[in-house]
């Protein structure tokens, strides 16, 4: 069994791709068949992932690569390949499992959409590409799938194509991530030129193995940073995070699958995959590239968490929360906690998908309303959604012991606390944890507690096809805490391939208590601040947020996303647009003007002979032709129709050649 899958790793992405192709060619009316086919593809991918997972569990530090030649150019072969190792297997499992839940949820959520079939085709396509990213054994193959993932994201964000805002968001996402991808592209080329191969693992010759790494030398830092730039774009890290909140224009299942659980995590995965490049030449686990990763992560995590506090759109809050969590994962990778980062990635995949699907269920129940200030009291109408949402919220906030997020967050804090260069990230992460708990509390109070407000008239619980995936994901979020607990460090060992010794001291050391205190502080402050949210309190009107009431300037700053979009619009975008106009202008007037200038020289000569002709002896005969001799026309003046002028020009040309010859000899 395990040998069978190792030779056929390509099947894992190929199955959803094939499903996507077939679904795309189905007529629009075959809704159920399309959904069934897409879901079958996903189930098959899940089954294959499970099969692929087994051998990695049996052997410690298992790694199998299957390489093949894509093409030969000249007499050089370009090799691609697939790899199966614990990192890939764990990601495969997470993606196909979460993906399946979301597929099922979409059947209910998109039931009324007229482009239902196309939606599933895109979704399958995405799934295939994402699975491909995970098992690629070549940076080039990873890049290929990476771009396809970006394409799927573009198509799905702009899925409601008749909405101008959706297509604008799709364009923004595509271009912003492509900015990052250009860095990735250059990094990849650089790596290829230095190491001569793009295969990660190739029996000791791959670029992540010692022989390949040895060839990199000092350029490794730059290569790593360029590749990290790609991850920054895809994972919505500062300063390329601006596309991710806008991407919420897509249908909610898309947000759950792509912009929460899987694609945005690809950046984190990428850094983890090429981690040897980052840590090459590390002193005490610190390299300059990793330091950059840490600080970008810290900035992103804090900034996004702050912005999330002041958002009103239920999905945008989750989007900024995603950005913030991805920042946290980056920090973790940067300080050396690769396993912790990946564990958080997997846990985050479950609970963030859960939260997004929950928000989808809420939106579905409120007939498309997304403004949390207009909801309220939904726990009575949508009990299942409420319970699962609360589980997701607690997992995200990092409530310890029973929720997956608690353990992974604690692990990350533990790793950050031991970072040699500085303790600043450690304390800044404290603020991040508090803020996360705070904005999630705010959201849940606004949505589920208090009295029903504007849009909650005919709210109802969603159909079972939507609630079942919620329950499944909620169970996942809880059950995962079993494998994530440091008391049983199996997953940690599995991911790193090294035995981890559990010390009981871990459980009683400050970090755990600190995180417990922080989470309770966050939730407590939230409960206190927003206890009267959405209702009138004192002289504060109901629709004004308590924070807005207390700190209007700060709130406006945060609600407008720190004006980063506006800043980009006024600087980068305005500048590029100006450059575009300038290029066009130069082309039309400057370069073309030069050409016309050369034309004019010919014209002047023609005018000269004409002038001599006319003013010379017999102006009388020529007057008839003067009128017709269009002086203003660009080149046509040379075409006077007068053979003698033609002859004269030939003679002058001859003379010029003669002079040239004389000059040369």
């Amino acid at each position, binding site marked *: 069994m395990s040998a069978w899958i190792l030779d056929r790793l390509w099947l894992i992405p190929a199955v959803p791709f094939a499903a996507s192709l077939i679904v795309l060619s189905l007529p629009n009316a075959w809704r159920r068949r399309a959904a069934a086919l897409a879901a079958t593809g996903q189930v098959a991918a899940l089954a294959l992932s499970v099969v692929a997972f087994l051998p990695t569990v049996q052997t410690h530090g298992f790694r199998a690569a299957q390489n093949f030649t894509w093409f030969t150019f000249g007499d050089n072969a370009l090799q691609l390949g697939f790899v199966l190792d614990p990192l890939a297997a764990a990601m495969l499992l997470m993606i196909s499992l979460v993906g399946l839940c979301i597929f099922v949820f979409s059947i209910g959520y998109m039931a009324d959409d007229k482009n239902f079939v196309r939606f599933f085709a895109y979704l399958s396509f995405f799934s295939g590409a994402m699975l491909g990213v995970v098992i690629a054994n070549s940076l080039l193959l990873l890049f290929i799938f990476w771009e396809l993932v970006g394409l799927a994201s573009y198509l799905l964000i702009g899925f409601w194509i008749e909405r101008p805002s959706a297509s604008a968001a799709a364009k923004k996402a595509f271009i912003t991530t492509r900015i990052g991808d250009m860095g990735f592209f250059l990094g990849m080329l650089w790596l290829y030129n230095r190491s001569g191969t793009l295969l990660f693992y190739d029996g000791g010759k791959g670029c992540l193995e010692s022989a390949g790494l040895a060839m990199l030398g000092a350029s490794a830092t730059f290569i790593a940073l360029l590749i990290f730039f790609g991850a920054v774009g895809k994972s919505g890290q500062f300063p390329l995070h601006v596309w991710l909140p806008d991407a919420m224009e897509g249908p909610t299942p898309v947000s759950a699958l792509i912009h929460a659980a899987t694609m945005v995590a690809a950046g984190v995965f990428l850094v983890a995959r090429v981690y040897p490049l980052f840590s090459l030449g590390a002193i005490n686990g610190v390299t300059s590239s990793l330091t950059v990763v840490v600080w970008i992560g810290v900035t992103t995590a804090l900034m996004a968490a702050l912005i999330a506090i002041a958002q009103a759109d239920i999905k945008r809050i989750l989007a900024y929360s995603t950005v913030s969590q991805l920042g946290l994962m980056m920090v973790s990778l940067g300080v050396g906690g690769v396993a912790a980062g990946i564990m958080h990635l997997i846990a985050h995949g479950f609970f963030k998908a859960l939260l997004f699907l929950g928000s989808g269920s809420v939106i579905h129940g409120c007939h498309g309303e997304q403004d949390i200030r207009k909801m309220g009291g939904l726990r009575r109408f949508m009990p299942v959604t409420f319970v699962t949402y609360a589980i997701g919220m607690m997992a995200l906030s990092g409530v310890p012991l029973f929720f997956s997020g608690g353990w992974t967050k604690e692990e990350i804090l533990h790793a950050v606390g031991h970072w040699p260069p500085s303790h600043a990230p450690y304390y800044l992460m404290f603020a991040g944890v508090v803020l996360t708990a705070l904005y999630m509390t705010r959201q849940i109070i606004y949505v589920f507690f208090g009295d029903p407000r504007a849009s909650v008239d005919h709210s109802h619980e969603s159909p079972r096809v939507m609630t079942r995936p919620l329950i499944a994901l909620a169970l996942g979020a809880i059950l995962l805490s079993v494998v994530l607990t440091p008391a049983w460090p199996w997953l940690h060992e599995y991911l790193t391939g090294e035995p981890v010794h559990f010390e009981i001291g871990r459980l009683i050391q400050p970090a755990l208590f600190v995180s417990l205190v922080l989470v309770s502080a966050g939730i407590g402050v939230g409960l206190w601040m927003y206890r009267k949210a959405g209702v009138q309190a004192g002289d504060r009107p109901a629709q004004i947020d308590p924070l807005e009431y207390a700190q209007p300037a700060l709130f406006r700053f945060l609600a407008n996303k720190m004006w980063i979009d506006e800043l980009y619009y006024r600087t980068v975008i305005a500048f590029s647009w100006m450059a575009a106009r300038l290029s066009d202008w130069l082309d039309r007037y400057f370069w073309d003007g030069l050409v016309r200038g050369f034309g004019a020289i010919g014209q002047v000569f023609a005018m000269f002979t004409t002038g001599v002709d006319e003013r010379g002896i017999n102006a009388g*005969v020529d007057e008839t032709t003067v009128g*017709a001799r269009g002086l203003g026309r660009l080149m*046509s003046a*040379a075409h*006077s*129709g*007068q*053979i*003698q002028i033609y002859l004269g020009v030939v*003679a002058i040309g001859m003379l010029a050649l003669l002079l040239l010859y004389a000059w040369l000899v």
Partner: protein
Amino acid sequence: MTPTLQAFVLVSGALFSIGLLAALSRRHAIFILIGIELMLAAANLNFIAFWHFAPQPHQPTGVMFAIFSIAISAAEAAIGLAMVIAVYRHYHTTNVDQLDQLKG
């Protein structure tokens, strides 16, 4: 004392320039034809002169060229003069200044 090749080429150049003068500055179509014939004649003179001065002229190439050139220029003259007549019939002029139908 015999003339050098240079002298012949100089004469040929002068003849060519005179032909050019006729072709460029006179307005009557027949003058243009005469000018062109003169230029061709200058070229023929060159062929012959270079043939004559070339070392060991085994093949009479220059002469052959001149013969063909004369034949072709005769054909050209016939056609040219026929065109002059045809144009004269049509436009009642042989003044090339007035013949600018091809003006761009």
